[in-house]
């Protein structure tokens, strides 16, 4: 039962990933794409946790933690680039 729910959640989150993909491809502006990538990151965290539950393993914790902790770095850099072109001033 729970497994089914986990699998279902995986698919639902997966569809969110596909939505992000659409936005990533369509754009149209750079912030849109950055947003899509950011969302993709977050969805990936969700998938990883779900997968960890599915396997009953805690080995995915580190990855999820690192994505949560540093995943926004890409967003920061890309946004800074859009704002200023020079990401380190």
């Amino acid at each position: 039962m729970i497994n089914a729910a986990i699998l279902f959640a995986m698919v639902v989150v997966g569809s969110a990933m596909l939505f992000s993909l659409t936005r990533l491809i369509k754009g149209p502006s750079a912030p849109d794409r950055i947003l899509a990538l950011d969302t993709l990151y977050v969805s990936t965290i969700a998938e990883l946790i779900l997968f960890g539950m599915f396997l009953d393993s805690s080995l995915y914790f580190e990855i999820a933690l690192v994505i949560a902790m540093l995943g926004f770095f890409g967003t920061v850099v890309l946004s800074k680039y859009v704002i200023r072109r020079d990401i380190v001033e």
Partner: protein
Amino acid sequence: MPLTLHILLSLPFLAAAVVAALPRTLSRGAVSWAAAAAPLAGLVLLGMMSPAVMGGEILRASLPWIPSAGLDLSLRLDGLAWMFTGLVLGIGVLIVMYAHYYLSSRDNAPRFYSFLLLFMGAMLGMVLAGNLLLLVVFWELTSISSFLLIGFWTHREDARQGARMALTVTGLGGLALLGGVLLIGRVVGSFELDAVLAAGDVIRASSWYPAILGLVLAGVFTKSAQFPFQFWLPQAMAAPTPVSAYLHSATMVKAGVFLLARLHPALAGTDLFFYVVTTVGAITLVIGAWYAIFQHDIKGLLAYSTISHLGLITMLFGLSTPMAVVAGVFHILNHATFKASLFMAAGIIDHETGTRDMRRLGNLRRFMPYTAALAIIASLAMAGVPLLNGFLSKEMFFAEALQVEAQGAMQLFVTVAAGLAGVLGVAYSLRFVHDTFFGDGPRDLDTDPHEPVRWMRVPVAVLVVMCLAVGILPALTVSGILETAVAGTLGDAAPEFSLAVWHGWNLPLAMSIIGLVGGVVLYFTLRRLFALHDAILRSWGRHLFQVNIEKLFAAAGRFTERVAAGGIRRSLFWMIVVVLVVGAVPFMGDAVGEAIGLASLPGSQPMPVLGWIIWTVLVVSSVATVAAHGRRLTALIVIGAVGLMLCAIFALLSAPDLALTQLLVEMVTIAMMMMALNYLPKQSKQSRTPFRRWRDAGISLAAGLGVFALVYGMLLRPSQTIAPELLARSLPEAYGANVVNVILVDFRGFDTFGEITVFAVAALTVHALLRWARLKPDEVMPGPPVQLPIPADLTQLLFPLTLTVSIYLFLRGHNAPGGGFIAGLAIAVPVLIKYVLQGARAVEATFGFDYLRGVGIGLLIACVGGLGSLLFGLPFLTSGHYDLELPIVGTLPLASALVFDTGVYVVVFAGALLMLSTMGTVKHRQRAAEEDY
């Protein structure tokens, strides 16, 4: 005294070194004496050995050099070598003496003499060589040193060209000869001359014989300026006259015929040899003589006559009868004497009148009677007038030419050639004598012609006296020498012969007379018909050579230019094509599916839905990257998704460590690319050639398909790996549960060691490239730097927490996903965020961490970590394990691999930040500087 030969050989080389070291300011006399000492001493040595040689003994001496390759410093003095040694040294002495007066104060005498001695040594080595390979060595040395001599007056274009041409042609011959000699060695099994000469039958019977003969003859013909390689020789006349006199009388060009004589027992005696050598000799003989008539330059005339005489000698060796060989050897000797004296005379004329152009000379007998007399006698010897040495050998030549046993056509050809040669030889000799010493007086000379200093004439006189002596009293003077030489050449097959001036009325004498008369008639006829002074006969061989060599340079240049201009894309294109071919060829001739063996292999595993989703995102964004590559920012964002999906795949397929690494590397890469993008155009210009795009698309698809097929084929095969043992031994022996990490720091720690070195060096390179660089941003935003206070402030908390996480990842790495590398990047990223949000200078002002030093320290720590085990006598990187008992804390497991991993940690952290901080703090180029461009 076995080493006498080696001493003899080393004399000129030693002298060359000594002379070269002499200061330029030293008087020319001293230099000349130093230079002359070598050949004089050599002559003494030779004299000491002469009795033995003349007694038929062959002196041998050998020093080992490369015995395993059949090349030793073995020297061998038989009759032929003895004669040549005498020639080389004797004429060498005269040339040195002559050159002393010839050279002007502007010429660098030490240089000249050292080259000359070098050449002399090379020549000596060649004639003395008892090993064919050694002969080739010295053969090539004569090419090189003659190149230096011909080009001695480097400022003159003709000298440079002549030298180049000589080296090119003789170099070609030398290489061919090398090939031929190697083939001989292959057939005979040894390069030692004794063995080769004894194995003539084996060589002639071998299937390699035509190749051997062709290659050796190519060497002979180029060196001896035989048709069709004769053209280099007149060009070489740009050399100072002593050089010409030496090279073109006794030495350089004689090397070819010497070789012909030397290898005569081994190679001659076949129809092929006979036809080729005789024909080439005959053609050269006639062509050279004909051209000689039409030269205006005295040295040019002499050069062509040299060609002609060499043709004669070649032809004699081609005829191959013992007597022909005798005549050939004899003529070598005679030609050396009269030609050396003629060249020297020409040099005197040049020296005293300032020109060698016969159109401007004439009537010189009035101004320089002694020289004129000497030159005339020598010319007559060249023409083959009785009572002079040239007559004797020419007579023998006629005799042999008439006796040739061959088919009708060949016989006729040889006879006609011989006859023509006689006529033409007289004609050009006459032209030289007449145009220079008789007729109308000299025209437009810059100086008043007069006799040279006496000592300059002495060498000429010595040689002319020899011509006369030999010509008049052959039996007394030269007979013994010739017998010895012939014995050396032919060995047991040497014929009995007697030299006499008078053989009675016979056919050869008739031919001589015809030649003399015909020559005189021809000369005066031609003079009337063609106005010789205006006639110009271009050497088409030289012309062809020059045209072709220029074409060769141009074509090669174009080819190279095209290749070099092809650039990266061409390189990569070829690489991919090669890869495609190499990857595809093994499957050819076999149905592809069958070859990959899909049918017979176990089925594949089912794919979860999540997998398909990740697959879709991956594939779509990968294709989108290609589609968007012109818009770089977009492409970068999209490629970020590819990287993320890769991370997801790794996570899904049981590789958490990889997922972590991929993720972190991805982030840092994106940051790096964004920094770079600041200094690059925002968009790619698209290439406007659709052909290239389609071609590239086709190739990429092929590459993709190929990789797909290979991977699929591999995946469907069962794996047979060493992994089970790794898994089993990881925990008990390396004390780590995370096998990947154990592999990284223990099983294959050395890889990691290399990997961090790569990382460190990459950081150094980035630093080195950008440290002093001034870059211009593609677009500078107006206004002051933007403040981002809010996110900057929020990351305040993030830094200590990520640092904590990083330490956690590092410490747990051996048992859970993590490890030095991941931890190092995990701490580098938040610092980088600081850079982005607060600006590099603000961060570096407070965060005083020397990244460069950090890299070095990290590497050293890693080394120390690995070397620790050496103290226990165990190999590098052997991990130790120790459970530390602490009072309150309990047991602390300490693995020595941790030290190594600390090194990794430090290198990665410092390296990543060194790269990124360097990139972030690039100095902008000033606007003023831009205007300059």
